[in-house]
């Protein structure tokens, strides 16, 4: 396992973590025997019939009322997913940059039906400020490969975008560095995290919170988020310092990073091909959980739908023009943490303007791989419900029969 915080998504809407700990703490404090602790008769006092959970209220409706633009999701190619494979792209842990560049060109041109130069003009203007959202979790092992980002940057630069108008970003600054996204490797290119987090304080190793907490009791990254642009959900974030350290805010607001609201005019989403539990942590999750703060409170009540709802806000919907999922090395189990036992050289890159069609294809491919490898597979519809929600919101295509999957 790596050395950072990871997110996984699972389907347990009814159990609040704190409540769960409280219950188990109470039970284990009683005297029990063998493998079963506690006094079952006490548990029987609880109601048997659960109240069906209602999703919490959000401000999604407000976002949906904003008229779409010509760049809005699902972009010019709804439901079109291009898969490019080259078995020589990554061998013995080494990525062949020339092959990745060739794969990139095939991917873009087969997606758009135009050459690279014309494709550039389809998505960008020369004065755009383009953010490349990478996934640095699992740094150096199952994170976005530098060679893929290099190919994207070369294309943008050739199209006329100056280096200073290209920004590689993620939610956490320190993860970018660990994954190799450094000024030394990318001279002149912006590298920005939406926030910092003091890992030593988070691990309890250091009691001093001054590295991340101001004297006024605010997170040092507070001003990196835009108080005017937010995803409001009627669920409170925990009040403890550990949560604040990791999530910057802890109320009912998840603010978008100012990088997205004030600086970037276009976004390229460079996710990684990997699972998270029974679902996937790819295009939608890379953006959905990477663009806002105060996210942990949202996992349980909204599950993967957070990704779709966040991407429905104009700050993402109207700027996210291209999605590339990096499957040079892929991981079918154990994710989103790096789990080498379940990783393999897939040597495949995926291209789409429609992140939801892309995720549906990749979800089905990872299920297929899990079955081939003898991993238990739970194909409950809850794990792809966020993709169908996206189709209902007219943000993308999720119905398999409407998706055109092109293999090169």
């Amino acid at each position, binding site marked *: 396992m790596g050395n950072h915080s990871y997110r996984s998504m699972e389907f347990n809407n009814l159990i609040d973590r704190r409540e769960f700990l409280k219950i188990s703490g109470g039970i284990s404090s009683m005297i029990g025997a063998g493998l079963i602790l*506690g006094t079952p008769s006490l*548990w029987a006092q609880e109601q048997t019939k659960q109240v069906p959970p209602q999703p919490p209220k959000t401000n999604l409706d407000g976002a949906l009322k904003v008229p779409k633009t010509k760049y809005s999701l699902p972009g010019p190619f709804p439901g079109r997913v291009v898969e490019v494979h080259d078995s020589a792209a990554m061998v013995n842990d080494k990525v062949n940059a020339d092959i990745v560049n060739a794969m990139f060109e095939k991917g873009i041109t087969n997606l758009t039906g135009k050459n690279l130069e014309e494709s550039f003009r389809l998505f960008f203007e020369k004065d755009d400020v383009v953010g490349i959202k990478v996934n640095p979790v699992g740094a150096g092992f199952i994170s976005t490969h530098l060679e893929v980002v290099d190919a994207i940057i070369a294309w943008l630069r050739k199209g006329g975008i100056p280096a200073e108008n290209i920004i590689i970003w993620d939610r956490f600054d320190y993860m970018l560095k660990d994954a190799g996204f450094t000024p030394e490797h990318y001279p002149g290119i912006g590298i920005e995290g939406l926030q910092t987090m003091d890992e030593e304080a988070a691990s309890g190793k250091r009691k001093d919170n001054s590295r991340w907490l101001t004297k006024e009791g605010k997170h040092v990254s507070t001003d990196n988020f835009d108080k005017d642009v937010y995803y409001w959900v009627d669920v409170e974030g925990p009040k403890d310092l550990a949560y604040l350290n990791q999530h910057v805010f802890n109320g009912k607001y998840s603010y978008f990073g100012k990088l997205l609201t004030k600086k970037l005019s276009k976004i390229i989403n460079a996710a990684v091909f990997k699972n998270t539990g029974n679902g996937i942590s790819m295009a939608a999750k890379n953006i959905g959980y990477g663009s806002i703060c105060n996210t*942990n409170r949202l996992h349980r009540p909204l599950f993967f739908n957070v990704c779709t709802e966040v991407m429905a806000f104009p700050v993402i919907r109207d700027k996210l023009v291209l999605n590339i999922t990096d499957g040079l090395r892929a991981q079918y189990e154990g994710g989103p943490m790096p789990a080498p036992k379940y990783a393999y050289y897939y040597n495949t890159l995926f291209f789409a303007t429609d992140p939801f069609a892309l995720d549906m294809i990749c979800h089905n491919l990872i299920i297929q791989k899990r079955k081939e490898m003898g991993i*238990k597979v739970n194909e409950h519809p809850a794990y792809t419900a966020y993709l169908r929600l996206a189709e209902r919101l007219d943000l993308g295509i999720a119905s398999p029969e409407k998706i055109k999957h092109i293999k090169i």
Partner: protein
Amino acid sequence: MKIKTIIIVFLLLSFYLPNQQLELPGDDFVDDWKKNGPLRQFTGSALYNYINGGSELFLEFGFKELLLQKYRKGEDEVSIEAYQMESPESALGIYLMKCGKETPIPEISIRNTGDQYQFMMVKGDYFVLVNNFTAKESLLPVMIKLANITIDRIIDKKPAELFSILPKQQLIEGSELLIRGPYSLQTIYTFGQGDILLLRKKIFGVAGDYKDEKGKIYTRIIIKYPDKAYANKAFNHLFSNLDPYIKILSKDNNSFTFKDYQKKIGIVSLKNNILHIKI
């Protein structure tokens, strides 16, 4: 007097040692390998600060403390993660959830699976990982040494025999799993939301895959509840809160059959304090 003192010291040690923190190998555990950075320690729910949502499964199985240490020699790095769980059964539960098809490293004497990237091991209350993300095969002897020094310091306690309630006939070897709540259950199947089987992170259920005469694979989940009344409560809770995608085909007092979203037929039956599920 001397014998009395020895007995007292022995008794004190026998009480004290199981709770003592595991000491991970220090500098020079092999050749010139040195510790790289401080020992990191995560206790209880602080595990969220390390693996965030991934910690739910560990906590469900009774996670107590993680010790993490990196080691370096020149450009090479390996690391060890020792997860202390509340019991050998808990440690086995998390190991089985993580290990997949086991490929044991012969030089390691305890139950393990591994390759040049990572070893996973289980001994007593501990689930232990040794990592080498560069995958250099030349580091395998270092990983083995690191693993062996560490596991020698772990008290060997055998888990209770939980799998004896799983029928052996047609059982696919290596498919056995333990469940203890919603996170481990959802690896296998979704019956509904929350702790649908009322395992409460305390009651262990067992699961295994089977292959019938026609080659069809099915799964059994068997849970031995503490008493008949609680088993009955769990059965009723399951029936009353089934996932909306599950359709009941038939029901009597102690069993029901259902069809799921994949048109798979399942059977749930209760006999005394034991719940049997076949899907």
